């Protein structure tokens, strides 16, 4: 019996369905205080005065916090950027100036959340309005500078130049020019908002229950920010209702709750974000504009070179940025064999919510760009969509990309076949011809995308050679507990991905026991000592880093158990089998009925050890394994090296009809084929695919952060932001292929982010529907109103030109 590969029911679900989960906001304690954060209504303004006296006078208020106090008690967060942007002062609260709408300007802790809010509204803040910078191109002019200490809005600039671009253009049969493409701003809106409970104890340590999804990293920012040692922080998570990367940076709010607790004399303080705060100020996805793109193609429509200018808008602070300026290069050529690329990449700040990693982080934006480029070229050259992909796909694996990344495995043509079969490609081709004959706008689009996982933090050095990061790692600790129970602790801090279940499957196979006999502790806890700096759930890596750590811990524990059992049973280690006997898990001498069970083994070490020989003195039955993927530091000069270990792939096909009169795009059919290598738990993997697909459909058709020209967020409630709901989700035909990764012990690839497949696919289907109308799909967002506007004003002449011969 093997458990890996089975759709084992999720262990987590029992407590979640019974309402016995513990989400941060569930935590209640007598005397607990509640924090309200007052936020700036302005996108850009100087703070002249903050008067908290009326708030402090309200009964029930324990304390207030202002930016000035925070600046006295905290040090600014480490900046990753090189050059002037390194001087940006990022504190958890605005001090002299606000730079985005929703930025914290003061806070109140009170005995109830309602009192805290009432008191917050009594705080008087005097502002002096400044001009807002709402556009990345305008920002780069530096007419209005957001961060005085940096002196410029430009955060980062670099040129990624591979192959011989000019030669390829000189030899090209066709050159297609696309003057502008734009990837819009949206986010993930996890079901559970950010939240934390903090207690600044009398001993000077801080206890946190939170839902941070990258606690390995968060500690390293939080502790110095609060002027503490990391060991003075006790960070714990339990159940987390989704993160999608968005919760990586909520350490800023953890700091505010901690400071409030400190000022309130050590009372526990809870902060629980409300949805509008989440939309305004929790972190958006990167917005990117692609300018002056030129594409060289040979006579067969094979892409030979691309040159382009990319401008990334990272919002008001560089929280995780400018890492996004490099992260995209994990997938430089997308799924295509193109060898010559020159991407001139710039990032700038604007008076919008800071960006944070958001599902598909930075790669998705680039993949969308590559997909648009290929798709527009196919239409311009009259090459059918499927044919165009087949001519350009990478086919040999492992494949080294022009910038030195190694695509581990894949089979894109097989995925295309499968997706076509699922959707009924031939049938839709016929229906499309009929629809077109009737003057209807029906399009069929293909999107091929990558979900690169397990990143090499060395890529940070491409962005800033002085950064002390490289490689990657993850930890699992495992013990045989006092009564012989297998207890596993993970460093990953899951946010709904079923890690307890998947880890149990791995352990069950290694020990030849039932997953029910494996207890994986929920959540993350620094007190377990199960973390490294990379610990967390992000960048599609659990199946590789998390499970490799679990697998490694199993080997260590097994080795100890084997030695102990061999001693007690007076047998040779190699004669012992891990198996499940009548009384449960045990080690047995092959072919005999002589066995020793787990309780006996544990007892020997923990309670009854006088008989143990010196040779077993090192056995603890409590092991810790750190998995480190085999990475090297990239060549920062050439911006060259392997940046990610695994490359899961997604291939989607959509059929969309656009209502000629209203522009309403309607999905008529949708198929999604996924390849994440060896699948650990098919049900969990399918859930991730459906989730990522629906999220991407929402992003393409519904979800967008729209600002007005002075920096008001116009979509700050769910009525306006409109996250996708079950009413909007089409029937997704899901399929799967497995190309095992040669680089992970189990053949698995990380997955879950999904590479933004629907964004590429829906754009391609709309392009197919509207190309004959003279319309180039140049934006990633397509609300009906926008498609309607586009129909009124064809843009092909402005956007694209083709030179052949």
């Amino acid at each position, binding site marked *: 019996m093997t458990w890996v590969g089975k759709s084992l029911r999720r262990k987590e679900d029992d407590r979640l369905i019974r309402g016995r989960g513990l989400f941060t906001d569930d935590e209640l304690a007598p005397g607990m205080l509640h924090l309200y954060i*007052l*936020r700036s*209504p*302005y996108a850009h303004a100087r703070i002249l005065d903050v008067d908290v006296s009326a708030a402090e006078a309200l009964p029930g208020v324990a304390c207030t916090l202002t930016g000035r106090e925070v600046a006295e008690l905290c040090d600014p967060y480490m900046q990753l950027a090189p050059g002037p942007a390194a001087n940006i002062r990022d504190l958890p609260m605005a001090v002299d100036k606000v730079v985005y*709408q*929703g930025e914290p300007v003061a806070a109140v802790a009170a005995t109830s*959340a*309602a009192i805290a*809010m*009432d008191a*917050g*509204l009594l705080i008087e*803040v005097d*502002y002096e309005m400044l001009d807002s910078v709402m556009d990345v191109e305008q920002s780069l002019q530096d007419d209005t500078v957001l961060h005085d200490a940096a002196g410029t809005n430009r955060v980062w600039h670099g040129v990624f130049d591979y192959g011989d671009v000019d030669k390829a253009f000189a030899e090209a049969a066709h050159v297609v020019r696309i003057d502008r493409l734009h990837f819009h701003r949206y986010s993930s809106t996890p079901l559970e908002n950010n939240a934390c409970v903090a207690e600044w104890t009398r001993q000077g340590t801080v206890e946190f229950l939170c839902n941070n999804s990258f606690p390995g990293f968060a500690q390293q920012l939080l502790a110095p920010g609060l002027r503490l040692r990391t060991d003075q922080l006790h960070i714990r998570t339990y159940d987390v209702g989704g993160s999608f990367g968005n919760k990586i940076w909520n350490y800023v709010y953890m700091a505010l709750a901690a400071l409030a607790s400190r000022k309130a004399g050590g009372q526990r303080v809870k902060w629980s974000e*409300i949805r*509008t*705060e989440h939309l*305004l100020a929790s972190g958006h996805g990167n917005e990117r504009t692609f300018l002056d793109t030129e594409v060289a193609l040979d006579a067969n429509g094979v892409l030979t070179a691309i040159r382009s200018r990319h401008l990334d808008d990272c919002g008001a602070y560089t929280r995780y940025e400018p890492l996004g300026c490099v992260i995209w290069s994990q997938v430089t050529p997308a799924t295509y064999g193109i060898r010559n690329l020159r991407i001139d990449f710039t990032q700038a700040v604007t008076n919008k919510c800071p960006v944070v990693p958001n599902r598909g982080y930075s790669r998705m934006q680039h993949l969308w760009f590559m997909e648009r480029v290929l798709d527009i070229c196919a239409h311009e050259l009259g090459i059918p969509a499927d044919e165009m992909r087949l001519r350009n796909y990478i086919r040999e694996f492992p494949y080294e990309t022009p910038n030195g990344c190694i695509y581990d495995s894949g089979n894109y043509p097989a995925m295309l076949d499968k997706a076509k079969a699922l959707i009924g490609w031939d049938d839709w081709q016929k229906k499309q011809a009929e629809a077109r004959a009737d003057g209807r706008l029906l399009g069929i689009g293909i999107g091929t995308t990558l979900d690169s996982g397990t990143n090499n933090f060395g890529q940070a050095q491409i962005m800033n050679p002085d950064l002390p990061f490289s490689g990657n790692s993850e930890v699992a600790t495992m013990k045989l507990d006092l009564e012989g129970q297998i207890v596993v602790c993970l460093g990953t801090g899951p946010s709904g991905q079923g890690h307890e279940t998947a880890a149990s499957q791995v352990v069950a196979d290694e020990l030849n026991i039932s997953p029910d006999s494996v207890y994986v502790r929920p959540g993350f806890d620094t007190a377990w000592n199960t973390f490294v700096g990379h610990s967390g759930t992000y960048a599609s890596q659990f199946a590789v880093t998390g499970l490799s750590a679990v697998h490694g811990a199993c080997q260590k524990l097994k080795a100890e158990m084997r030695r102990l059992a061999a001693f007690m049973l007076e047998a040779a280690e190699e004669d012992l089998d891990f198996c499940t006997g009548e009384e449960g898990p045990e080690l047995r001498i092959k072919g005999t009925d002589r066995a020793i069970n787990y309780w006996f083994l544990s007892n020997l070490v923990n309670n009854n050890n006088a008989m143990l020989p010196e040779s077993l003195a090192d056995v603890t039955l409590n092991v810790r394994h750190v998995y480190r993927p085999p990475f090297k530091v990239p060549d920062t000069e050439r911006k060259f090296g392997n940046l990610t270990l695994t490359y899961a792939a997604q291939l989607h096909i959509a059929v969309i009809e656009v*209502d000629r*009169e*209203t*522009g*309403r*795009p*309607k999905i008529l059919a949708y198929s999604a084929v996924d390849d994440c290598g060896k699948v650990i738990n098919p049900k969990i993997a399918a859930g991730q695919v459906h989730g990522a697909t629906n999220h991407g459909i929402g992003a393409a*058709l*519904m979800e967008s952060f*729209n600002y*007005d020209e*002075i920096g*008001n*967020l*116009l*979509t*700050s*409630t*769910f*009525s*306006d932001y*409109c*996250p*996708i*709901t079950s*009413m*909007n989700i089409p029937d997704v035909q899901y399929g799967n292929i497995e190309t095992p990764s040669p680089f992970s012990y189990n053949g698995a690839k990380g997955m879950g982010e999904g590479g933004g497949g629907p964004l590429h696919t829906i754009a391609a289907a709309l392009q197919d529907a509207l190309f004959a109308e003279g319309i180039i799909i140049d934006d990633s967002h397509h*609300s*009906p*109103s926008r498609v*309607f*506007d586009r129909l*009124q004003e064809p843009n092909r002449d402005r956007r694209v030109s083709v030179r052949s011969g």
Partner: protein
Amino acid sequence: MLSSQRFRFDGESTDSETTMYPAPFRYHRAGSADEAISLLAELGDGARPLAGGQTLLVWMKLRFDEPTDLVDIARIPNLSSIEHDDHQVRIGALATHGRIAASPLARLIPIVHDCANGIADRQVRSRGTIGGSLAAGDPSCDWPALLHTLDAEVLCQGPDGERTIGIGDFVEDLYATALQEGELVTGIRFALPPARSAGAYVGFKRCAPAYPTASAGVQLTLAEDADTCADVRIALGSAGLTPIHATAAEAELRGQALNETTIERAAEAAVAASDPVDDQRGSPAFKRAMLRVLVRRAVGIAIRRCNGESVEHSHEYY
């Protein structure tokens, strides 16, 4: 519905906050309409009746409204009945959208089902009431447009006694109705549609918890020949600051043969009467295009229903 606009600095004031808890208020529960009316009169202009709370509580949480007192009317008996005789339909103000959608009346008059069942999601439908929807004066709400389509009357009771207000006079402006301070809506009534008459109400929505981008209601009576429109009412929702009674559109159809040309003319006239605002649901030009389609679609469904066809219908999503 102003939700996002709330956190929108307009250049003058700075009272935009992210809030989720209402300002403090006192709560009272009324046992009868009379008691509610006298309580409201006693408590003065800071008091509001509370029905399903699906609009009022949202306003309070966002602090658009900070009432000093809430007079809960939701449990007043006899204000939630849904009944009709051979001539007239009467719906109590406290009937919820969900109960109306599930009532025999909604089966009898499908346009009522279209509207009631298409409002928001199940949670909102099981609390929100038809009276609250009217009294809120929100042009995005579905009932006011539907009741325009059915030429309903609003039954009110206040300190000065009872009165009946035609729907056309009831909604006066954005968030403003003809209700006097302390006056309650107790119910609505409209004539039972005659034989050969049927209607349809179609809204276009982005997703369940969002109000319609635009909506159209059509109640059509066919002449004996089955091809001619004997009478018609057309109303538009989310198409301006109040629901719009599209009389010019009706004139294009009344007494005319129902065909593509006349229906198109009616749709055109309806669009001309609309004045949609620019918001995150769409640009005015888009909403007009949408209204044209919705009017046509509603007329088409109404014709089919007049002809005895059963057409399942509700809002459209994308």
